[in-house]
């Protein structure tokens, strides 16, 4: 029976190939698009762990209340000091005020503008999960002395020094000479910004050279553990309400954001994205299935006479049904098999900056659904063929 089905399909090679192509595209797109969606959510998950799960960020700005900018009190180093009081905030492990700016760095005749210049305390490195690859972090003493030292990210190092070892070299950042004491480990791009394209220097050094000793952009707080972030968050709110002399907790001029919750929002967004991609792919699989029905109907019409002959020779209904079902199932099995191959090969290339991660269940699922579609969409034409009256089938021209 399978031999007959093969012969039937081989009789119209182009037609069979095009039908298979329909299923192939459907299956391949299901696998590939789900892999892309999965890849992006994996990337988000990785960036959550990269950021550290017990870090909190305090930024200035109203939390949605209708307040004019004049009444908004900026965050200051004093706020950070208040937060660093272990008596008032037992769940806070460390505090790092952060100022961000941009400046052009020069080394020899190479000039490069890193993505950001950060001025902060040594606690920043641990809180932001920044690990050193070579050299060392700058120390608390460097902060106190406003030492002209810097730790640079791997992208910045690559741009300025290429293959040279940057540790011990002096770069000129916006005219201020800074000695590179360490290079950070590569974190890898997680979205549109490159976390490795940074220069990190002691807070007073950056304030002195660029931003001035006013406010800070944000305060990075590390809770004692991932479980205490909620308590730490309320302690921060209490303390900063005190320093900013606020009484109404609904009208705050700062915002404490939990990195984990921020990123879990992004993760759920990417899951929605995956579902949407999957739905699009499923539609193309359905279209492939309709293609099978269409071709099988054409085949049945074309071979009506042959069906008549077979019936005259005493072919039972089940045999005719089986033959056409085998043909449509073969079409879908081959199409799905090639689609799986195409999907897996396609997932080795990165799509719009996202490295697709193939979900094994999607491969089996897509294959299974394609075969089921072959059976389901093939059953109508097959049943039509099997139900033909022999005399009508034989008279068909």
């Amino acid at each position, binding site marked *: 029976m399978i031999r007959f089905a093969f012969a039937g399909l081989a*009789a119209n090679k182009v037609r069979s190939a095009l039908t298979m192509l329909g299923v192939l595209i459907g299956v391949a797109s299901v696998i590939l698009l789900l892999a892309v969606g999965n890849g992006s959510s994996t990337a988000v998950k990785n960036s959550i762990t990269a950021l550290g799960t017990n870090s909190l960020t305090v930024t200035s700005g109203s939390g949605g209340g209708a307040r004019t900018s004049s009444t908004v009190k900026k965050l200051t180093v004093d706020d950070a000091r208040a937060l660093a009081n272990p008596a008032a905030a037992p769940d806070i492990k460390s505090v790092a005020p952060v100022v961000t700016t941009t400046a052009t760095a020069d080394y020899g005749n190479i000039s490069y503008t890193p993505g950001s210049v950060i001025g902060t305390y040594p606690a920043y490195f641990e809180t932001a999960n920044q690990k050193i690859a070579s050299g060392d972090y700058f120390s608390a003493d460097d902060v106190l002395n406003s030492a002209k030292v810097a730790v640079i990210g791997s992208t910045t190092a690559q741009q300025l020094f290429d293959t040279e070892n940057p540790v011990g070299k002096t770069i000129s950042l916006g005219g201020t000479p800074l000695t590179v004491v360490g290079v950070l480990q590569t974190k890898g791009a997680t979205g549109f910004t490159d976390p490795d394209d940074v220069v990190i220097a002691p807070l007073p050094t950056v304030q002195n050279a660029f931003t001035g000793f006013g406010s800070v952009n944000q305060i990075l707080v590390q809770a004692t553990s991932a479980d205490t972030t909620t308590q730490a968050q309320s302690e921060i709110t209490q303390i900063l309400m005190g320093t900013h002399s606020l009484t109404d907790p609904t009208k705050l001029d700062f915002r404490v954001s939990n990195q984990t919750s921020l990123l879990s929002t992004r993760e759920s967004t990417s899951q929605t994205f995956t579902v949407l991609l999957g739905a699009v792919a499923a539609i193309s699989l359905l279209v492939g299935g309709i293609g099978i029905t269409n071709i099988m109907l054409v085949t049945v019409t074309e071979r009506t006479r042959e069906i008549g002959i*077979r*019936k005259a*020779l*005493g*072919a*039972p209904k089940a045999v005719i049904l089986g033959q056409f079902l085998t043909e449509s199932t073969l079409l879908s099995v081959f199409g799905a098999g090639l689609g799986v191959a195409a999907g897996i090969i396609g997932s080795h290339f990165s799509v719009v900056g996202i490295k697709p991660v193939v979900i094994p269940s999607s491969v089996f699922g897509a294959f299974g659904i394609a075969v089921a579609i072959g059976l389901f969409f093939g059953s109508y034409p097959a049943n039509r063929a099997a139900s033909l009256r022999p*005399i009508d089938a*034989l008279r068909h021209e």
Partner: protein
Amino acid sequence: MARRARAKRSAGSAVAEAAEPAVQQVPPPVIQVRRLTKSYGHGDATVHALCGPWDPQTDEPLGVSLDIEPGDFVAVMGSSGSGKSTLMNILGCLDVPTAGRYLLDGIDVGHLDESQLSLVRNRKIGFIFQSFNLVPRTSALAQVELPLAYAGVRAAERRKRALAALALVGLSERADHKPNELSGGQQQRVAVARALVTAPAMLLADEPTGNLDSRSTEEVLAIIDGLNATGRTVVLITHEDEVAAHAKRVIRLVDGQVTSDVRQGPAGGPPPVLARQLAAAQAQQAQQTGALIGGRS
């Protein structure tokens, strides 16, 4: 030439076979048709393809009644539209009559469902069509194996019987050829092999020579003669007198009615054409023998 010799041999054995049932009882007819009618359409637009004589009182068709004995070779003749194809389709269980009873080999076909009908077609009837009706893209051997496959015969047995059937029609060397690689006559001989491979109760041939040249016509008819000589019942539909001359009984249909039913030879024994050839051969042999005895040159 080889085929003709074979036909003679089988003809010889057929005489012995045909004698046997006569010694026993009268065998039941292969086909028993009682008051069979077939009409298309409704009301005033009704067309009676098969009606038989009309009842003078009620003006209703009385239907066609017909008996065909085992071993008979019946030719059904008539112009197009006479109802002969309709009769053939009903006899072949491809179509159902509007009214009447049809007993094939003792089985009332009217009470069978679709799957039982396909079984009857497979076991009881061998079809030969005017347009050959071979399955496209399938080798001659596979064509002949097809009805056996539907009957559930095992592959080895199937192959053996299919090859034997192909040998009988003289196409052993063409077993691997597809229909488009065979001539019209060869295709029809494959169709004959396919029809006889299941050893059916009846061969049903619908204008088997209609699409063939005269030489192929002779070949195919000789095979059919040979099959009938071995006791196979044959019902043949034609509009050519030369073809009908091969039959032992000729039924003429006009406008759905049987107008004449002529017997050209006994139901048992070889068909008329073969019988004449046999007689001629015997006469020639006798003459030769006589010549030898007589000593004349």
